[in-house]
Structure formats: C-alpha cells, structure tokens
C-alpha cells in the first residue's frame, strides 16, 4: 500500500534525472542515432546483457531462500566486524547535521538508482560496444559474488547492533523507504555492501570511458563517493562492509575489462 507511492516517487525522480543527464552528457545527436541503431547494438552485446538479465532474475527469485539458507550454513560475523572496527560508524554519524542526513538519504535511494541506470543508457548510445559489455559483466560479477557472500556470512549493520549510539537515520527520517528496501534486501545482507561495490564499479568503468564522457566520470565519482559515505553515515553498513565492497568492485571491473578486451 505504502510501497506503491514510494516506488512511483523513486521512478519519477529517476526518469527526470536520466533525461536531463542524457541530453546534457550524451547529446541529442548521439541519442537520435542510438534510437535507430539500438536493436543492432543490443545484438552486438547480447551475451553479457543476457547474462546480466538472468543474474538479476535469479537474484530476485532466490533472495528470500538465501536468507534462510544463510541462517543454516552461514557464519554470523557481526561480533567479529564490530570487534575489528569498533565505534567508527557512531563516530562518523556523530559528525552529521540534518543537511547531511538529507543529502545522504537522497544519495542512498535516488542517487544509487541513477548511478546504476545512467551508464547503461550512456554506453548504449556509443557505437563502441565495449563499455556496455564491460559494465554488464562487472554488474553480473557483483551480484553473483555478493550472493555467495550473503550465503556464507550473516551480518547485521551498525543500526541493528548499536541501538544506543547509531541512529537508523534513513528509516527514522524516511520510514517509507523501508518498505522499498526491505523488498530488495534482507537486513542481514550487509557484508559486503552492494551499494558500495556497484557504485565503485560504476566509477571504475566511468574511469575507463573518461575520454568519451569526461563529465560523467566526474559526476559518477562525486555521486558514487557520496553513496559510499551514505551507507555508513545512515548506519546501514560497517566500514568493513564498505572495504569488502571496494574489493568486490575491483574484481568486477577487472573481470569486465578482460571480457570487453578479450
């Protein structure tokens, strides 16, 4: 019930952001050509795109069972993570202001969707199919390895362990977002942070295409880093999850490059 308006809002904001960026960064001319050549271009990158679609479909189906299986076979590493990094997240959150909270909340929800979807549009508009292939492979690697980790490790984020010192900022200020995110993610899937790994992946691929889209590289870096900061500031992820996410992104981008070049 509450899900529908939230979803509608997210989609609307995303469409506006995407259209504006597409016009500004990709250019009208390129978009026109893309419209006519799109079927042919998609055929060229058919394999990695199909793989990505299949991975996303499987991901949406097994999400629920994965959480169940993780309780059977996974290790609960929450105490270990807290033992390693201690009170970093409470400290980071204590630096915040209401303005930060708003910025990070919007980055976490809207910025994330934007950063993930825009490069797909931008790279589809290129004659060179390699960036799109690299991106599709890198996304798939993220989801597959992420899923493996979610089976092997059960972990709760700081907001679920440190109720006294970490506020669950996103959900206390925007409780409606929880209806959206709880459909997408279980609260035990925090190690590694997929928000981090996918944002870092986008930054990595944007770096590889910086000559075609220099503006996008700058935007992706700024928004991506904000999202990564937001995962910790909002009390959703540990710094450890973020580090693991960056490592995962590194693996994913390398795999993407190898595929696109090979």
């Amino acid at each position, binding site marked *: 019930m509450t899900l529908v308006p939230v979803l509608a809002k997210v989609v609307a904001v995303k469409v506006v952001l995407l259209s504006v960026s597409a016009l500004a960064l990709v250019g009208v001319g390129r978009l026109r050509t893309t419209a006519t050549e799109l079927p042919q271009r998609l055929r060229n990158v058919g394999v990695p795109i199909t793989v990505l679609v299949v991975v996303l479909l499987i991901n949406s189906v097994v999400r*629920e069972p994965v959480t169940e299986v993780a309780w059977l076979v996974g290790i609960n590493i929450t105490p270990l993570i807290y*033992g390693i990094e201690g009170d970093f997240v409470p400290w980071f959150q204590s630096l915040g202001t209401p303005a930060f909270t708003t910025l990070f909340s919007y980055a976490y929800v809207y910025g994330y969707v934007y950063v993930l979807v825009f490069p797909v549009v931008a790279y589809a508009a290129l004659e060179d199919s390699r960036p799109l292939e690299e991106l599709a492979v890198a996304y798939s690697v993220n989801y597959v390895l992420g899923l493996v980790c979610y089976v092997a490790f059960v972990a709760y984020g700081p907001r679920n*362990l440190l109720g006294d010192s970490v506020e669950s900022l996103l959900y*206390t200020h925007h409780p409606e977002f929880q209806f959206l995110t709880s459909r997408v993610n279980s609260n035990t899937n925090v190690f590694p942070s997929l928000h981090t790994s996918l944002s870092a992946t986008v930054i990595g691929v944007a770096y590889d295409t910086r000559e075609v889209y220099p503006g996008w590289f700058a935007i992706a870096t700024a928004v991506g880093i904000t999202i990564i900061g937001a995962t910790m500031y909002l009390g959703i992820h540990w710094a450890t999850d973020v580090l693991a996410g960056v490592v995962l992104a590194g693996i994913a981008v390398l795999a993407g490059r190898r595929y696109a070049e090979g």
Partner: protein
Amino acid sequence: MTRGGAAPQDLSRRAVLATAAATLAGAGGCVKRTRNVMARDPPEQVTLRILTVPVDANPYPSRIARELASHLQACGVDASVEPMEPEALYRRVLLEHDFDVYVGQFPRSEWRDPDTLYALCHSMFGGEPGWQNPFGYTSMGLDDDLETQRTSSGRERRRAVTDLQAHLAEDQPFTPLAVPDALGTTRTDRFGGWHGNPMQPVVLLGLDRVGDTDTLSVVTTDGRVTGNRNPIAAEFRARGTIIDLLYDPLAREVDGVTKPWSAADWRLDGGDGQPVAEVTLRPDLRWHDGESLTAADVAFTYEFLADTSLGNADSPIPASRYRGRISLVDEVAVADERTVRIAFGDASPVVAMRALTVPILPQHVWRDRTEPATIAGVETNRTMTEALAWNNPRPVGSGPLAFDRGVPGESLRLSRFDDHFLRGDPEGLPDRLVGGPEYGELRLSVAGSDDAAVELVAAGGADATVSPLGAAVVPRIGRESALSLVSDPSRAFYHVGYNTRTAPLSNTRFRRIVARLLDRATLVDDVFDGYARPAASPLAGTPWYEADAFPDEMGLGSSFVRPDGTLDTASSKAAFVEAGYRYDDGRLLVE
C-alpha cells in the same frame, strides 16, 4: 578491540616454549619438571557470547546486551554481542540449548498466575525444547516450591510462591530486569472500541466498525507468522495473537476473567486434591474446513500436546508450547459427542483451570503427523515429530477468523468464519463480542521496523500495530493527530538467561555477580525511556510479589552500577575474586 585471539596464541606459545625447553634440557629431572608444568592446562580467559535480536525486531534487548557486554569486558571477560533473527535465536536457545547468555523477553504478556513459572523453572523440563527451563537449571528446593504452589491454596500457596521467588533470586538461573509497557498505536476513523491493547485477540474481535471498510488492517514487525503458522512450534511464536484468532481454546480470558469460550459450560469437582472437570462444548462447533468439532477432538488435543508421537516414539515428544498447562492434565475421556471429562493431577482447582486455555487442534489434521520428522525423506532426528517441524501453511482451526492467504515475510489475510459461535447468540460473553467480528477480513502487513510500522498506520495503510513498539517512536505517534498511543503493562518481562549447563555459568556465584552488573533502574530510564518498571522477580507487579522476601544481595538496590550509571569495576572484580576466580593481566580466567 579483539581480545578473542589472545588466548589461543598464548596457549600455543606456551606449548612451543615448553617443548623447546624440554628438548634443550634433555636430562631426566628437567623433563619431570616440564611434565609437572604441562599437567596443568593453562587457564583461559572467560569468553561469553551474548545472543539477542536486532534493533529492527526489538530495540531494547540489544541495548541491554551491549551494556552487559561492556560491563563484563570491564571485569576482564571476553564478552561480545551477537544479534540474530528471533526465529534463529529461539531455535538456538530453546531447541538446541546452544548458547552462553541471551537477552530476551518472556513470550506471554497476559499472565498473573505463578503456576506459569512451573514449566519455565522446573528441573524436570531441563532437557526439553521450548520455553521449558531453557537454562538447564536444577534445584530440588525450587521444584518443591513449584509443586506446593500447584496443589495448595491460601496462606500455604502464598508462602510457597514467596519461597520460590527467593530461590530464583538466590540462584539466578535467569535475571529478570524489567516488566515493560506494551506500546502500540491505533487509529479510530475506521474502527472504534479499542478496549485494551490491540495485541490481544479479544480486543481485535470486539471492535466497532465506524467507517465503510470491511477490512481490518494491522501491522507487525514480527513476520514469523507469515511463514509458519504452527501453534505448537515455540521458536516461531511470540504472543501468538494471530494463532489465537485462528485457534479457539475451551476457555479464554475476557476482561481479566477466564470465561467459557468453545466450552458452553463446565462443572469442576475439587475431588481430594485431584480435580475433575466435566466440560460441555457449545452446540454445532465446526472447523474451518467444515468438519464438526467434537469431544473427540478435545481429548485428542490433550493427548497430542503431551506426546506429539501419540505413543509411537520410545519416550513422549511433547509440543514445545503449552507444556506447563498440559502437565496439569492426567487423563481426558470422551463422555459423549459434546462432553469430555478432564482428570487433573495434583493441583488446586484454580491452577487446574489454566489447562482449559490451550488451543484445540483438529484430530483429522494432526493425527497423520506423528511420525519422526524427515528431511527429503530421510529421518534425521527421532526426538522431533513431523507435527513440530510442520509449517502448517493452511491452518485449520475453529477460531472466529479463518486463514485465507499469506505471502512469507510480507502479509497475511484472514477472513471471518461465519460458522463460528460468536456469529450466533452465545451466552456468557460481553455484548461487544456477540455477533462479531464486525469486519469480513483481517489483513496483517509486516513492517521492517517500529518506525515503518507507525508510518504505515499514520498513512492509513493499517488501523493498529500488533507487535510491541519501542519507546523511541512515542514522539512520532504524538506528532500524528490521527494516531492514539496505547500503553498497558505487559507481563512479558525482559531478562538475561544463562545456560547453566556449562562453566562458568554453571556456577551460581558467577551468575550472581553477572546479575549485579546491570542496574534495573538505570535500564528503565536509559533503555526503556521510563516505559517499564524494574523487576527483580518475574512476578513483580503482581500481588504475589513480596519485596521483603529477597536476599539483600540480590534485591533491587544490589547492583555494582553506581547511581550515575558507571560500573564500580573494583568491587565487581573483587566479587569475582571472592567467588574463587583469578585474574591474569586484567583477564578473568576460567580453569
């Protein structure tokens, strides 16, 4: 931060040094000396893992657990907190008994009779799964008190109950902390007549419809019932609000009095300490699948709850819920289609009546689930029956609401059962229940946290919350004009439970010190924001509580925590030393 790694490293270093020394020395005398040293295992630091639920499930326990862990660390214990889903936590604690310490809540909020503690504390339940003595605690003295309160009345019973509270305080198999206020929120534009807390099934059944909608929508933060609806599986049940709407008992508590429910009436014969009840069912009772509910179903229920294998297993495999109440019943015989004779064991009539409040189960559904549970056809555990492992996806009960459909983790839909006796003109029940419920459908949604649940009610997506909320959302409820705050005292006390089966928690002295590392008044202020009362006994807040009966050391003011909230580390460490424990380099050691 990590202290866990230190002990094993230390151990191996000692072993290596010892071996090296022995090799170098070679000579006989030195070897003998080395053997002397090696013969004593080096003591290790005490390690305790405190299990609890995540903040999303309940904001209080993890804060208590963190406080306890930090005070234990200050005393040189390697303590850490591990949050787990309620289902996983209670599986570990109640079924597998594989834990050190947990911080949790007693699952029943509406109880006053001290006999409720019988199953929780009696030694004979130490090996059983469920809310039956999960602590593995044994005490002949306490067992005697529990038996005496069951069979006596008046001053004698009172003395036994006072005694048993003193016993619990002395031995601390678990440390009661606070009795909370059950907080909830309701909106009144579609339904009125919220007489009490919406977590109580009887309150939901007695609502007045004031709007046009035919659907009552409620929201919970505990989604277990969307995936499992087994009334006898302890790890999936909290208060059992939904289960109690689906399954009817013979008697239900209405407005604080135990009233005939599926039973039309009963006659209780006190006998000579072994009462017998002749219970007559209401006419024309039906199960949700259309079958008739008869006296045979009632007799079956009592036999089945006591042994879900119905005699097929080597020893009985009881249901993991309702154990205390079932242990009151000796034998149930069918007198005719609508009458059963329930013979109780040694019990006073007041206590015996508790047995009538268990849900009645349909014989034709559960009779076939008495075999040992299997995984993919392979028998893995002969002490678990299919009935206990079953998720009961389409429950068949006889309650006022019948199951319609459910999406695991998201929602549940129940519809009014029009063959229910409430739809007729039942006698002996308050007017608001007669003819009810006034809605055709009840929808339960699952929210990810207290904030999301309140938001859903505020946005009009639900009429009430049916799982207890944390105090942190009270201001949010206050800001929304459409919402009213519901707050009533709950008996679901928060406590720290210890696994007394293993060292060092098997040592009463050790537990008594751990119990004093928390201060109840501080917790009530800091963690519960005042929405709770300190409790040194599970019966605190009932007329059975007697503050004078407590040993001074274990009473309410006996904590090592100073009034300003800081721990008196020196005194608590001294207490460990006095109890026979040793320190090495600030670490508390266990042999």
